[in-house]
């Protein structure tokens, strides 16, 4: 995958964390996920968004419970001690800001972005054969992971990016 598509997501994640969440974090090295890799027991919530246009792109934010609580507490200024519907809403909003912040810096223009879907990590799906780049991250309190899947658009896949958000993770 062209780093020109990866770097905007890294920069956008830093921007969201620095301006709104104010929780320090470290990003690890991006790597190509193997087909057999299953990290879903580690993560508690995932938010996925689909980009349609010059390429088909999937962005997923996976978060552990500790990371969700840390992020939501930082975002809202109120300590949160358990997962609830507000946490799902907050994760969706964080994913939305990261994805749309990245969109403006992508090497191609004309992308439309779906609304975020917040679901259990084991339900995250990608089109068969799509290479997925994973970028691990750690807030010091909890871990999260960005995932990017991408392939060139075909007539069938260049849709309008519309998706109905599903908040079924709570």
């Amino acid at each position: 995958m062209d780093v020109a598509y990866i770097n905007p997501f890294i920069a956008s994640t830093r921007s969201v964390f620095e301006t709104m969440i104010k929780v320090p974090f470290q990003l690890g090295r991006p790597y190509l996920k193997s087909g057999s890799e299953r990290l879903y027991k580690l993560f508690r919530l995932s938010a996925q968004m689909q980009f349609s246009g010059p390429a088909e792109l999937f962005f997923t934010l996976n978060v552990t419970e500790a990371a969700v609580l840390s992020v939501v507490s930082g975002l809202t200024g109120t300590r949160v001690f358990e997962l609830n519907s507000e946490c799902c809403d907050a994760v969706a909003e964080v994913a939305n800001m990261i994805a749309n912040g990245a969109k403006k810096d992508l090497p191609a223009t004309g992308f439309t972005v779906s609304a975020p879907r917040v679901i259990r990590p084991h339900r995250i799906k990608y089109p068969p054969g799509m290479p997925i780049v994973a970028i691990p991250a750690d807030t010091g309190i909890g871990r999260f992971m960005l995932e990017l899947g991408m392939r060139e658009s075909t007539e069938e896949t260049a849709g309008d990016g519309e998706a109905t958000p599903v908040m079924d993770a709570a």
Partner: protein
Amino acid sequence: MKILLVDDSRTMRNIQKRALADAFAGAEFGEAGDGVEALSVVAEAPGGFDLILVDWNMPNMDGLTFVQRLRATDKRTPAVMVTTEAEKTRVMDAIKAGVNSYVIKPFTPQMLIEKVRGTLERLKAAA
């Protein structure tokens, strides 16, 4: 001061409310999760609102359409669009629709407060 917050994310509304409550002592807040609800809240609010913050991408009715509908009968209430849409063409579309100011997410509380204050002062000076 009465402020209407229009965003489908309750988290985002709470963030805006906290920032503006710190800056505008005694402010009262109305909330709506989409443009349809916002039009209803505006219509039912005695005396209307002094400021509206509105997101762009929302279900049922997006923020741009809400502002267009609002401006059909209300040219006065300051409207600040708070959105992830950062492209210049989008900003121009919002201004043409009748938005007075634009804040791009993510933002710090200070960014939001300064933009709101600047908008209110500019409109007051122009009145």
